[in-house]
Protein backbone atom coordinates (compact mmCIF):
# COMPACT_ATOMS: atom_id res chain seq x y z
CA UNK A 1 0.00 0.00 0.00
CA UNK A 2 1.53 3.35 -0.97
CA UNK A 3 2.68 5.47 1.93
CA UNK A 4 3.58 8.36 -0.28
CA UNK A 5 0.08 8.97 -1.52
CA UNK A 6 -1.52 12.03 -0.06
CA UNK A 7 -4.91 13.48 -0.99
CA UNK A 8 -4.45 16.49 -3.24
CA UNK A 9 -6.25 19.06 -1.19
CA UNK A 10 -7.73 19.70 2.18
CA UNK A 11 -11.16 19.50 0.61
CA UNK A 12 -10.52 16.00 -0.57
CA UNK A 13 -9.22 15.05 2.85
CA UNK A 14 -12.40 16.34 4.42
CA UNK A 15 -14.47 14.55 1.81
CA UNK A 16 -12.57 11.33 2.44
CA UNK A 17 -13.02 11.76 6.16
CA UNK A 18 -16.75 12.29 5.74
CA UNK A 19 -16.89 9.16 3.65
CA UNK A 20 -15.12 7.14 6.30
CA UNK A 21 -17.55 8.22 8.95
CA UNK A 22 -20.35 7.25 6.64
CA UNK A 23 -18.96 3.89 5.61
CA UNK A 24 -22.08 2.07 6.74
CA UNK A 25 -24.09 4.02 4.22
CA UNK A 26 -22.39 2.33 1.27
CA UNK A 27 -23.84 -0.59 -0.56
CA UNK A 28 -20.56 -2.34 -1.15
CA UNK A 29 -17.21 -1.44 -2.72
CA UNK A 30 -18.64 -0.65 -6.17
CA UNK A 31 -20.97 1.89 -4.60
CA UNK A 32 -18.05 3.42 -2.71
CA UNK A 33 -16.00 3.62 -5.91
CA UNK A 34 -18.88 5.32 -7.68
CA UNK A 35 -19.12 7.90 -4.93
CA UNK A 36 -15.37 8.50 -4.97
CA UNK A 37 -15.42 8.89 -8.75
CA UNK A 38 -17.83 11.81 -8.39
CA UNK A 39 -15.17 13.78 -6.54
CA UNK A 40 -13.16 13.77 -9.76
CA UNK A 41 -15.86 16.05 -11.11
CA UNK A 42 -15.74 14.66 -14.63
CA UNK A 43 -18.12 12.58 -16.69
CA UNK A 44 -18.02 8.97 -15.60
CA UNK A 45 -16.55 8.00 -18.95
CA UNK A 46 -13.57 10.29 -18.38
CA UNK A 47 -12.81 9.13 -14.86
CA UNK A 48 -9.20 8.17 -14.31
CA UNK A 49 -9.29 4.62 -13.05
CA UNK A 50 -5.71 4.96 -11.78
CA UNK A 51 -6.63 7.98 -9.74
CA UNK A 52 -9.78 6.25 -8.56
CA UNK A 53 -7.76 3.25 -7.39
CA UNK A 54 -5.52 5.62 -5.45
CA UNK A 55 -8.52 7.38 -3.92
CA UNK A 56 -9.96 4.07 -2.83
CA UNK A 57 -6.69 2.86 -1.34
CA UNK A 58 -6.35 6.15 0.51
CA UNK A 59 -9.86 5.68 1.83
CA UNK A 60 -9.00 2.25 3.15
CA UNK A 61 -5.82 3.60 4.77
CA UNK A 62 -7.84 6.35 6.38
CA UNK A 63 -10.36 3.87 7.70
CA UNK A 64 -7.51 1.83 9.18
CA UNK A 65 -6.03 4.93 10.82
CA UNK A 66 -9.39 5.72 12.39
CA UNK A 67 -9.70 2.07 13.45
CA UNK A 68 -12.90 1.62 11.49
CA UNK A 69 -13.41 -1.97 10.57
CA UNK A 70 -14.21 -2.54 6.94
CA UNK A 71 -16.12 -5.55 5.69
CA UNK A 72 -14.13 -8.18 3.83
CA UNK A 73 -15.62 -7.11 0.45
CA UNK A 74 -13.96 -3.72 0.79
CA UNK A 75 -10.59 -5.24 1.59
CA UNK A 76 -10.82 -7.67 -1.31
CA UNK A 77 -11.50 -4.73 -3.61
CA UNK A 78 -8.54 -2.84 -2.11
CA UNK A 79 -6.20 -5.74 -2.85
CA UNK A 80 -7.54 -5.99 -6.38
CA UNK A 81 -7.14 -2.24 -6.96
CA UNK A 82 -3.56 -2.36 -5.68
CA UNK A 83 -2.92 -5.10 -8.22
CA UNK A 84 -4.63 -3.07 -10.93
CA UNK A 85 -2.56 -0.04 -10.03
CA UNK A 86 0.69 -1.98 -10.41
CA UNK A 87 -0.47 -3.35 -13.73
CA UNK A 88 -1.27 0.14 -14.94
CA UNK A 89 2.00 1.66 -13.77
CA UNK A 90 4.54 -1.05 -14.54
CA UNK A 91 5.29 -2.40 -18.00
CA UNK A 92 4.08 -5.97 -18.34
CA UNK A 93 6.67 -8.63 -17.60
CA UNK A 94 7.73 -10.48 -20.71
CA UNK A 95 5.77 -13.68 -21.12
CA UNK A 96 3.17 -12.57 -18.61
CA UNK A 97 -0.31 -13.57 -19.65
CA UNK A 98 -3.73 -12.58 -18.46
CA UNK A 99 -5.58 -9.37 -19.23
CA UNK A 100 -3.69 -6.11 -19.41
CA UNK A 101 -4.11 -3.31 -16.90
CA UNK A 102 -5.99 -1.30 -19.51
CA UNK A 103 -8.46 -4.11 -20.09
CA UNK A 104 -9.10 -4.49 -16.38
CA UNK A 105 -9.50 -0.74 -15.97
CA UNK A 106 -11.91 -0.59 -18.89
CA UNK A 107 -14.03 -3.31 -17.35
CA UNK A 108 -14.14 -1.54 -14.00
CA UNK A 109 -15.16 1.66 -15.79
CA UNK A 110 -17.93 -0.29 -17.52
CA UNK A 111 -19.14 -1.73 -14.21
CA UNK A 112 -19.27 1.74 -12.66
CA UNK A 113 -21.08 3.18 -15.64
CA UNK A 114 -23.58 0.31 -15.63
CA UNK A 115 -24.26 0.65 -11.92
CA UNK A 116 -24.78 4.37 -12.36
CA UNK A 117 -27.12 3.70 -15.30
CA UNK A 118 -29.16 1.23 -13.25
CA UNK A 119 -29.37 3.75 -10.40
CA UNK A 120 -30.77 6.33 -12.76
CA UNK A 121 -33.15 3.79 -14.26
CA UNK A 122 -34.35 2.82 -10.77
CA UNK A 123 -34.98 6.49 -9.96
CA UNK A 124 -36.94 6.99 -13.17
CA UNK A 125 -38.94 3.86 -12.47
CA UNK A 126 -39.86 4.97 -8.97
CA UNK A 127 -40.76 8.43 -10.27
CA UNK A 128 -43.47 6.95 -12.48
CA UNK A 129 -47.13 7.22 -11.60
CA UNK A 130 -47.90 4.30 -9.33
CA UNK A 131 -51.01 2.24 -8.73
CA UNK A 132 -52.54 3.09 -5.38
CA UNK A 133 -50.68 6.40 -5.23
CA UNK A 134 -51.32 8.25 -8.49
CA UNK A 135 -53.88 6.11 -10.24
CA UNK A 136 -56.36 3.69 -8.82
CA UNK A 137 -58.18 0.46 -9.41
CA UNK A 138 -61.86 -0.09 -8.88
CA UNK A 139 -62.67 0.49 -5.23
CA UNK A 140 -65.82 -1.56 -4.99
CA UNK A 141 -65.63 -4.87 -6.79
CA UNK A 142 -68.51 -6.56 -4.95
CA UNK A 143 -71.14 -5.26 -7.27
CA UNK A 144 -73.75 -7.99 -7.35
CA UNK A 145 -75.26 -10.35 -4.89
CA UNK A 146 -72.91 -12.93 -3.52
CA UNK A 147 -72.71 -16.23 -5.22
CA UNK A 148 -70.08 -18.06 -3.33
CA UNK A 149 -67.41 -19.86 -5.23
CA UNK A 150 -64.56 -20.92 -3.04
CA UNK A 151 -61.15 -20.79 -4.62
CA UNK A 152 -57.99 -21.68 -2.86
CA UNK A 153 -55.03 -19.44 -3.29
CA UNK A 154 -51.38 -20.06 -2.79
CA UNK A 155 -48.37 -18.28 -4.14
CA UNK A 156 -45.22 -19.74 -5.51
CA UNK A 157 -43.52 -18.42 -2.40
CA UNK A 158 -45.89 -20.43 -0.20
CA UNK A 159 -45.03 -23.43 -2.29
CA UNK A 160 -41.29 -23.01 -2.05
CA UNK A 161 -41.38 -22.27 1.65
CA UNK A 162 -43.55 -25.32 2.26
CA UNK A 163 -41.07 -27.48 0.43
CA UNK A 164 -38.15 -25.97 2.27
CA UNK A 165 -40.01 -26.54 5.53
CA UNK A 166 -40.52 -30.19 4.71
CA UNK A 167 -36.96 -30.71 3.53
CA UNK A 168 -35.40 -29.02 6.53
CA UNK A 169 -37.81 -30.27 9.15
CA UNK A 170 -35.35 -32.88 10.33
CA UNK A 171 -32.90 -30.10 11.10
CA UNK A 172 -35.27 -28.58 13.58
CA UNK A 173 -37.12 -31.50 15.06
CA UNK A 174 -34.46 -33.96 16.04
CA UNK A 175 -36.99 -35.72 18.24
CA UNK A 176 -39.24 -36.41 15.30
CA UNK A 177 -38.77 -40.15 15.15
CA UNK A 178 -39.05 -42.08 11.97
CA UNK A 179 -42.40 -43.78 12.01
CA UNK A 180 -41.11 -47.18 11.08
CA UNK A 181 -39.04 -47.65 14.21
CA UNK A 182 -41.70 -46.79 16.78
CA UNK A 183 -43.82 -49.42 18.48
CA UNK A 184 -46.70 -47.60 20.10
CA UNK A 185 -48.30 -48.34 23.44
CA UNK A 186 -51.61 -48.88 21.65
CA UNK A 187 -50.01 -51.62 19.57
CA UNK A 188 -48.47 -53.22 22.67
CA UNK A 189 -51.73 -53.05 24.57
CA UNK A 190 -53.61 -54.70 21.77
CA UNK A 191 -51.05 -57.49 21.55
CA UNK A 192 -50.96 -58.08 25.31
CA UNK A 193 -54.70 -58.17 25.71
CA UNK A 194 -54.61 -61.14 23.38
CA UNK A 195 -51.80 -62.86 25.29
CA UNK A 196 -52.44 -62.32 29.01
CA UNK A 197 -55.22 -64.87 29.05
CA UNK A 198 -52.49 -67.52 28.84
CA UNK A 199 -50.15 -65.93 31.43
CA UNK A 200 -51.14 -68.08 34.42
CA UNK A 201 -47.55 -68.29 35.74
CA UNK A 202 -45.07 -65.46 36.41
CA UNK A 203 -43.26 -64.69 33.18
CA UNK A 204 -40.69 -62.19 31.95
CA UNK A 205 -42.18 -59.08 30.41
CA UNK A 206 -39.71 -59.40 27.55
CA UNK A 207 -41.41 -62.47 26.20
CA UNK A 208 -44.33 -60.26 25.22
CA UNK A 209 -42.22 -58.36 22.71
CA UNK A 210 -43.30 -59.05 19.12
CA UNK A 211 -40.89 -61.27 17.16
CA UNK A 212 -39.87 -58.65 14.65
CA UNK A 213 -38.93 -56.18 17.37
CA UNK A 214 -36.46 -58.28 19.36
CA UNK A 215 -33.22 -58.09 17.38
CA UNK A 216 -32.57 -54.52 16.25
CA UNK A 217 -31.60 -52.63 19.46
CA UNK A 218 -33.46 -49.49 18.42
CA UNK A 219 -36.64 -51.40 17.74
CA UNK A 220 -36.23 -53.51 20.87
CA UNK A 221 -35.95 -50.39 23.02
CA UNK A 222 -39.09 -48.90 21.51
CA UNK A 223 -41.03 -52.15 21.88
CA UNK A 224 -39.82 -52.66 25.48
CA UNK A 225 -40.92 -49.18 26.48
CA UNK A 226 -44.32 -49.64 24.84
CA UNK A 227 -44.83 -53.08 26.35
CA UNK A 228 -43.87 -51.85 29.81
CA UNK A 229 -46.31 -48.94 29.52
CA UNK A 230 -48.99 -51.32 28.35
CA UNK A 231 -48.29 -53.62 31.32
CA UNK A 232 -48.72 -50.71 33.71
CA UNK A 233 -51.99 -49.86 32.03
CA UNK A 234 -53.22 -53.45 32.40
CA UNK A 235 -52.16 -53.50 36.06
CA UNK A 236 -54.12 -50.31 36.60
CA UNK A 237 -57.13 -51.97 35.05
CA UNK A 238 -56.61 -54.86 37.51
CA UNK A 239 -56.00 -57.40 34.78
CA UNK A 240 -52.37 -58.30 35.61
CA UNK A 241 -49.91 -58.34 38.50
CA UNK A 242 -46.34 -57.13 38.20
CA UNK A 243 -43.23 -57.88 40.28
CA UNK A 244 -39.52 -57.21 40.19
CA UNK A 245 -37.00 -58.86 42.55
CA UNK A 246 -34.60 -55.92 42.60
CA UNK A 247 -33.27 -52.94 40.71
CA UNK A 248 -32.59 -53.72 37.01
CA UNK A 249 -33.86 -57.26 37.54
CA UNK A 250 -36.33 -58.57 34.97
CA UNK A 251 -39.90 -57.42 35.39
CA UNK A 252 -42.35 -60.30 35.68
CA UNK A 253 -46.02 -60.43 35.00
CA UNK A 254 -48.95 -62.82 35.36
CA UNK A 255 -52.70 -62.77 34.90
CA UNK A 256 -54.67 -61.70 37.94
CA UNK A 257 -57.29 -64.16 39.07
CA UNK A 258 -60.68 -62.59 39.35
Amino acid at each position, binding site marked *: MPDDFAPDSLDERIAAEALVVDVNGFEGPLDLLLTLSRTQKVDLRQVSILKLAEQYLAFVEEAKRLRIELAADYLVMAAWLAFLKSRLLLPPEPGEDGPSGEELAAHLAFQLERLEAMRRAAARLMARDQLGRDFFAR*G*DTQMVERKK*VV*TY*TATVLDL*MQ*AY*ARVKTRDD*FEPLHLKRGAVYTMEQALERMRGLIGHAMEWGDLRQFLPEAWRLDPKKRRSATAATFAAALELAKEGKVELRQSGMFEPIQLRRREI
Partner: protein
Amino acid sequence: MGDDVQSLFEAPPLAEQERMVEAILFASAAPLSLATLNTRLPHGCDAAEAVALLKKRYIGRGVQLVRVDDAYAIRTAPDLGFLMTKEQIEHRKLSRAAIETLAIIAYHQPVTRTEIEEIRGVSVSRGTIDLLIELDWVKIGRRRMTPGRPVTFTVTQGFLDHFGLETPRDLPGVKELRESGMLDNRPPPGKGEGEEDGEGESETDDFFD
Protein backbone atom coordinates in the same frame (compact mmCIF):
# COMPACT_ATOMS: atom_id res chain seq x y z
CA MET B 1 -62.66 34.96 2.28
CA GLY B 2 -62.37 38.04 0.07
CA ASP B 3 -63.47 38.04 -3.55
CA ASP B 4 -59.98 38.56 -4.85
CA VAL B 5 -58.66 35.56 -2.94
CA GLN B 6 -61.46 33.39 -4.26
CA SER B 7 -60.72 34.32 -7.82
CA LEU B 8 -57.25 32.87 -7.35
CA PHE B 9 -58.91 29.53 -6.78
CA GLU B 10 -61.30 29.47 -9.65
CA ALA B 11 -63.25 26.26 -10.03
CA PRO B 12 -62.19 23.99 -12.92
CA PRO B 13 -64.52 23.83 -15.94
CA LEU B 14 -67.60 21.65 -15.51
CA ALA B 15 -66.27 18.98 -17.92
CA GLU B 16 -63.21 18.68 -15.70
CA GLN B 17 -65.39 18.41 -12.60
CA GLU B 18 -67.24 15.57 -14.27
CA ARG B 19 -63.92 13.74 -14.87
CA MET B 20 -63.04 14.24 -11.25
CA VAL B 21 -66.31 12.85 -9.96
CA GLU B 22 -65.94 9.90 -12.31
CA ALA B 23 -62.48 9.07 -10.95
CA ILE B 24 -63.50 9.52 -7.32
CA LEU B 25 -66.63 7.39 -7.59
CA PHE B 26 -64.74 4.71 -9.50
CA ALA B 27 -62.02 4.39 -6.89
CA SER B 28 -64.30 4.63 -3.86
CA ALA B 29 -65.18 1.46 -2.00
CA ALA B 30 -68.55 2.86 -0.87
CA PRO B 31 -71.17 5.23 -2.32
CA LEU B 32 -70.39 8.91 -1.68
CA SER B 33 -72.80 11.72 -0.79
CA LEU B 34 -72.80 15.06 -2.59
CA ALA B 35 -71.43 16.64 0.58
CA THR B 36 -68.49 14.23 0.65
CA LEU B 37 -67.84 14.73 -3.04
CA ASN B 38 -67.79 18.48 -2.53
CA THR B 39 -65.17 18.20 0.22
CA ARG B 40 -62.97 16.11 -2.07
CA LEU B 41 -63.36 18.27 -5.16
CA PRO B 42 -61.33 21.47 -5.55
CA HIS B 43 -62.77 24.65 -4.16
CA GLY B 44 -65.74 26.05 -6.03
CA CYS B 45 -66.87 22.82 -7.69
CA ASP B 46 -70.50 21.80 -7.79
CA ALA B 47 -70.76 18.05 -7.23
CA ALA B 48 -74.51 17.97 -7.93
CA GLU B 49 -74.05 19.37 -11.42
CA ALA B 50 -71.08 17.14 -12.20
CA VAL B 51 -72.96 14.05 -10.97
CA ALA B 52 -75.96 14.95 -13.15
CA LEU B 53 -73.71 15.24 -16.24
CA LEU B 54 -71.95 11.97 -15.50
CA LYS B 55 -75.23 10.18 -14.91
CA LYS B 56 -76.41 11.28 -18.32
CA ARG B 57 -73.18 10.16 -19.94
CA TYR B 58 -73.58 6.63 -18.60
CA ILE B 59 -77.13 6.14 -19.83
CA GLY B 60 -77.21 3.01 -21.97
CA ARG B 61 -73.63 2.04 -21.05
CA GLY B 62 -72.40 -1.14 -19.37
CA VAL B 63 -72.19 0.66 -16.05
CA GLN B 64 -74.45 3.31 -14.60
CA LEU B 65 -74.33 6.04 -12.03
CA VAL B 66 -76.93 5.14 -9.43
CA ARG B 67 -78.22 6.83 -6.32
CA VAL B 68 -78.03 4.81 -3.11
CA ASP B 69 -79.93 6.62 -0.34
CA ASP B 70 -78.42 10.08 -0.51
CA ALA B 71 -75.16 8.88 -2.04
CA TYR B 72 -73.88 7.97 -5.50
CA ALA B 73 -72.02 4.99 -6.89
CA ILE B 74 -71.06 3.44 -10.23
CA ARG B 75 -72.72 0.06 -10.69
CA THR B 76 -73.09 -2.60 -13.36
CA ALA B 77 -76.12 -2.07 -15.63
CA PRO B 78 -78.88 -4.34 -14.25
CA ASP B 79 -79.33 -6.22 -17.54
CA LEU B 80 -75.67 -7.30 -17.47
CA GLY B 81 -75.77 -8.82 -13.99
CA PHE B 82 -75.54 -12.27 -15.53
CA LEU B 83 -71.94 -11.51 -16.55
CA MET B 84 -70.93 -10.86 -12.98
CA THR B 85 -71.56 -14.23 -11.42
CA LYS B 86 -67.91 -15.15 -11.65
CA GLU B 87 -66.88 -12.11 -9.69
CA GLN B 88 -68.05 -13.49 -6.33
CA ILE B 89 -65.10 -15.58 -5.41
CA GLU B 90 -64.08 -16.38 -1.92
CA HIS B 91 -60.35 -16.81 -1.59
CA ARG B 92 -59.14 -19.29 0.94
CA LYS B 93 -55.63 -20.08 1.87
CA LEU B 94 -54.52 -23.65 1.41
CA SER B 95 -53.91 -25.58 4.59
CA ARG B 96 -50.36 -26.30 5.60
CA ALA B 97 -50.84 -29.99 4.87
CA ALA B 98 -52.19 -29.21 1.40
CA ILE B 99 -49.44 -26.77 0.42
CA GLU B 100 -46.75 -29.13 1.67
CA THR B 101 -48.26 -32.04 -0.21
CA LEU B 102 -48.52 -29.90 -3.34
CA ALA B 103 -44.90 -28.79 -2.97
CA ILE B 104 -43.71 -32.37 -2.65
CA ILE B 105 -45.65 -33.40 -5.73
CA ALA B 106 -44.26 -30.45 -7.68
CA TYR B 107 -40.66 -31.12 -6.68
CA HIS B 108 -40.72 -34.92 -6.84
CA GLN B 109 -43.27 -35.82 -9.47
CA PRO B 110 -44.26 -38.45 -10.36
CA VAL B 111 -44.61 -39.44 -6.72
CA THR B 112 -46.75 -41.99 -4.89
CA ARG B 113 -48.76 -41.34 -1.80
CA THR B 114 -46.42 -43.47 0.29
CA GLU B 115 -43.47 -41.43 -0.92
CA ILE B 116 -45.25 -38.20 -0.03
CA GLU B 117 -45.86 -39.54 3.44
CA GLU B 118 -42.23 -40.57 3.76
CA ILE B 119 -41.04 -37.09 2.82
CA ARG B 120 -43.54 -35.27 5.03
CA GLY B 121 -43.07 -37.69 7.91
CA VAL B 122 -46.82 -37.78 8.53
CA SER B 123 -49.69 -39.43 6.78
CA VAL B 124 -51.57 -37.62 4.03
CA SER B 125 -55.31 -37.66 4.26
CA ARG B 126 -57.38 -38.73 1.29
CA GLY B 127 -59.13 -35.34 1.30
CA THR B 128 -55.91 -33.41 0.85
CA ILE B 129 -55.05 -35.03 -2.44
CA ASP B 130 -58.71 -34.94 -3.52
CA LEU B 131 -58.76 -31.19 -2.96
CA LEU B 132 -55.60 -30.70 -5.01
CA ILE B 133 -57.09 -32.76 -7.82
CA GLU B 134 -60.32 -30.82 -7.63
CA LEU B 135 -58.38 -27.56 -7.91
CA ASP B 136 -56.85 -28.96 -11.09
CA TRP B 137 -53.36 -28.56 -9.66
CA VAL B 138 -52.65 -32.27 -9.34
CA LYS B 139 -53.55 -35.21 -11.50
CA ILE B 140 -53.09 -38.94 -11.39
CA GLY B 141 -50.11 -40.07 -13.40
CA ARG B 142 -48.87 -43.48 -14.46
CA ARG B 143 -48.83 -46.39 -12.09
CA ARG B 144 -45.43 -47.16 -10.67
CA MET B 145 -44.05 -50.51 -11.88
CA THR B 146 -43.40 -51.74 -8.36
CA PRO B 147 -45.30 -54.28 -6.25
CA GLY B 148 -48.85 -53.12 -5.73
CA ARG B 149 -48.48 -50.88 -8.79
CA PRO B 150 -49.32 -47.72 -6.81
CA VAL B 151 -50.68 -44.67 -8.66
CA THR B 152 -48.42 -41.64 -8.90
CA PHE B 153 -49.33 -37.98 -8.79
CA THR B 154 -48.04 -35.15 -10.98
CA VAL B 155 -48.86 -31.47 -11.30
CA THR B 156 -51.06 -30.12 -14.10
CA GLN B 157 -50.93 -27.33 -16.64
CA GLY B 158 -53.41 -25.55 -14.36
CA PHE B 159 -50.80 -25.68 -11.62
CA LEU B 160 -48.16 -24.13 -13.88
CA ASP B 161 -50.58 -21.40 -14.96
CA HIS B 162 -51.55 -20.57 -11.40
CA PHE B 163 -47.99 -20.36 -10.15
CA GLY B 164 -46.66 -18.65 -13.26
CA LEU B 165 -44.17 -21.37 -14.05
CA GLU B 166 -43.17 -22.73 -17.42
CA THR B 167 -42.15 -26.10 -16.04
CA PRO B 168 -41.86 -27.51 -12.51
CA ARG B 169 -38.11 -27.63 -13.20
CA ASP B 170 -38.00 -23.87 -12.74
CA LEU B 171 -38.70 -24.20 -9.04
CA PRO B 172 -35.54 -23.45 -7.10
CA GLY B 173 -34.02 -26.26 -5.03
CA VAL B 174 -33.54 -26.01 -1.30
CA LYS B 175 -29.95 -24.89 -1.74
CA GLU B 176 -30.93 -22.13 -4.14
CA LEU B 177 -33.76 -21.06 -1.89
CA ARG B 178 -31.34 -20.69 0.93
CA GLU B 179 -28.73 -18.88 -1.16
CA SER B 180 -31.14 -16.36 -2.54
CA GLY B 181 -32.46 -15.62 0.91
CA MET B 182 -35.92 -16.92 0.12
CA LEU B 183 -35.61 -19.32 2.96
CA ASP B 184 -35.15 -18.23 6.52
CA ASN B 185 -34.38 -21.70 7.77
CA ARG B 186 -30.70 -22.00 8.35
CA PRO B 187 -29.18 -25.37 9.01
CA PRO B 188 -28.49 -25.75 12.69
CA PRO B 189 -24.86 -25.20 13.69
CA GLY B 190 -22.76 -28.32 13.57
CA LYS B 191 -24.53 -29.89 10.67
CA GLY B 192 -22.43 -30.11 7.53
CA GLU B 193 -24.18 -27.72 5.22
CA GLY B 194 -22.66 -29.00 2.01
CA GLU B 195 -23.67 -32.59 2.35
CA GLU B 196 -27.28 -31.92 3.13
CA ASP B 197 -27.78 -29.40 0.38
CA GLY B 198 -26.02 -31.51 -2.14
CA GLU B 199 -28.36 -34.30 -1.36
CA GLY B 200 -31.44 -32.13 -1.70
CA GLU B 201 -30.36 -30.95 -5.09
CA SER B 202 -29.33 -34.22 -6.56
CA GLU B 203 -32.64 -35.62 -5.48
CA THR B 204 -34.50 -32.97 -7.41
CA ASP B 205 -32.31 -33.57 -10.41
CA ASP B 206 -32.96 -37.27 -10.32
CA PHE B 207 -36.63 -36.72 -10.60
CA PHE B 208 -36.46 -34.31 -13.46
CA ASP B 209 -33.78 -35.57 -15.76
